[in-house]
């Protein structure tokens, strides 16, 4: 009995707009009309500026821990752009750009990191799940959301975002397995940004690509340049069609880079070389998009200045709305625990104490 090869695998890498501004007309044809490209560039720029301001807010004590999105704007934005408005976006915490495109107000994101639950009160019309802090857990929810759509015979799909580190978690593997084996319309978008806090990608995945993790579960995979909004849009568009028309999942590895620290509580200089960061700064999704726009004569420094002025006003207004919001009620700690509060919990709320004997000590609400 001869030994024979039974499986050969290939993984495609898609690049349409490279870091030098070279653009593949053929692959990019019909993907993003010029007018939309301008809007997408503006969206990335405004997200980037908010990121800078959020960092400063944290440093000046006006906000808690904040995870910068810098450098990863193209991935989630491309998905939000390509998907239908009622497709689920199931994100973690580095997808601000896609959420803003979807209509989530900037002040929601700010409020969340300012320690206010109202920031995570995602209105249903955005079809975006709340920011998921525990790593690699939300992909299962995407599988469930997609399953519900399939159950109802609807065409809505779910698109979930997570990092390379998240693919080490068991929940990721369970989500991929469920989606593939139950034929669920899910698009898995792995933002491979090379770092899980201080732990490099090679500790998470020894294979040459993260994408091949999807192959193991029997789903189509593709790797794209995650800083190339065209490549991201291209892949999500194909995956969304497969999900919508065939109810099949796809795994997309979006190769990008976390230009900032993990969060404001982190200092990446402790564990990675600045030379590596500098290389990736050149691959910034904003830079190459602007290069293309300028080549197409859709953009110039005057437009940049005008946009920057407008963005600064918009972000300042969002910051003001986040900071000037009326303080949350202390009763809010209790009132969202259940649809109907129990008598005991209501008593805790109304007395703000947990001991049983009557107490003369007045209860005062505390600031932070």
């Amino acid at each position: 009995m001869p030994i024979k090869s039974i499986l050969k695998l290939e993984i495609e890498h898609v690049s349409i707009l490279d870091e030098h501004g070279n653009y593949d007309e053929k692959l990019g044809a019909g993907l993003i009309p010029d007018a939309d490209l301008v809007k997408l560039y503006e969206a990335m720029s405004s997200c980037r500026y908010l990121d800078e301001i959020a960092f400063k807010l944290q440093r000046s004590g006006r906000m808690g821990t904040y995870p910068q999105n810098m450098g990863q704007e193209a991935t989630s934005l491309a998905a939000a752009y390509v998907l239908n408005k009622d497709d689920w976006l199931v994100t973690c915490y580095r997808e601000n750009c896609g959420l803003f495109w979807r209509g989530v107000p900037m002040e929601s994101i700010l409020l969340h990191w300012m320690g206010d639950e109202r920031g995570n009160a995602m209105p249903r019309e955005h079809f975006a799940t709340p920011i998921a802090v525990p790593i690699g857990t939300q992909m299962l929810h995407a599988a469930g959301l997609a399953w519900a759509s399939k159950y109802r015979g609807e065409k809505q799909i779910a698109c979930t975002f997570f990092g390379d580190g998240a693919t080490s978690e068991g929940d990721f593997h369970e989500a991929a397995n469920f989606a593939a084996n139950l034929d669920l319309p899910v698009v898995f978008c792995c933002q491979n940004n090379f770092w899980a806090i201080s732990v490099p990608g090679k500790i998470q995945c020894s294979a040459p690509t993260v994408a091949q993790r999807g192959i193991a579960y029997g789903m189509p995979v593709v790797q794209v340049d995650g800083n190339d909004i065209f490549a991201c849009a291209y892949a999500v568009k194909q995956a969304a069609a497969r999900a919508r028309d065939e109810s099949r999942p796809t795994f997309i590895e979006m190769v990008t880079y976390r230009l900032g620290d993990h969060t404001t509580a982190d200092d990446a200089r402790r564990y990675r070389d600045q030379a590596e960061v500098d290389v990736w700064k050149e691959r910034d999704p904003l830079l190459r998009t602007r290069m293309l726009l300028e080549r197409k004569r859709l953009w110039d420094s005057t437009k940049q200045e005008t946009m920057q002025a407008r963005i600064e006003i918009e972000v300042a207004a969002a910051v003001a709305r986040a900071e000037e919001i009326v303080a949350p009620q202390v009763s809010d700690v209790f009132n969202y625990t259940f649809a109907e509060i129990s008598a005991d919990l209501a008593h805790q709320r109304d007395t703000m104490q947990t001991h049983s004997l009557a107490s003369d000590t007045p209860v005062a609400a505390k600031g932070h």
Partner: protein
Amino acid sequence: MANLNLVQAINLALIQEMERDERVLLLGEDVGINGGVFRVTEGLHKRFGARRVVDTPLAESGIIGTSIGLAMAGLRPIPEIQFDGFLGPAYDQICSHAARMRTRTRGACTVPLTIRVPVGGGIHAPELHSDSPETIYSHQPGLKVVMPSSPYDAKGLLISAIRDPDPVIFFEPKRIYRAYREEVPEDEYTIPIGKARVVCEGTDLTVISWGASVLQCMESIEKSSRSVELIDLRTIYPMDLDAIETSVKKTGRCVVVHEAPRTGGMGAEVAAQIMERCFLYLEAPVQRVTGFDTIMPYYKLELNYMPDAARISGAIDAALSY
């Protein structure tokens, strides 16, 4: 003697045990080159190398599950789970295996590991970075649960935990990681697991607490005109029942303070033990000052959630005037 904070005391304990015992190794997310997100393992990667201070894949179940294997093979792993709220994925490995292995194998197989976990609120952290899940693991038979409130105790307790033949969850109250310093001997010493500490003696009422809340209890007691005894349990399971009994029989009144939610919290166990052991000595019902039975709020409201000196004083006064 060195003047150390909690982080430094734990760091020193880790260094000394790793130097003493080749079987001890650290593993977890960011514990290596980065020295841990709270810098508890600062310098250890450099000192002991990547073989003994291991940055793992981002997988809590994997960290604990492989630690169980390492421990079953006779090593002394010290896995770190980065935050209290991230224990979830590791729950199955901790409770279904680490806690049960000795019983399951009639002692043929044991799991001597020490799981380090920063715990509790009050540091303006995001969601799931401020929880107090000690009750869950105290309720699981087969686990020892420790939570120091001082640098001195932290060093001595951690060394005991590492040398313990059974799995220990070592909760580190992150709110007081750098809150204060105290004299911590360089020389080897241990503090036995299962022994409480009388922080201050008193005759009118006993306050029982653990972890960072001990500091709020001290603040409250300092303001009190009455003679209040404070017991820091230090080990939540197994609980020092003799210390509780001795104190409450003396004072006749007791307030238990913890940051975790009230219902089914370890304060309930303390109260039940007191009722069973000290019933005829009690002058007032045991009072609990705890977190509320809610999800730990985001940081804007977290100070409203956590027991503070005012709430503790309210309970002390109410119990004293009963």
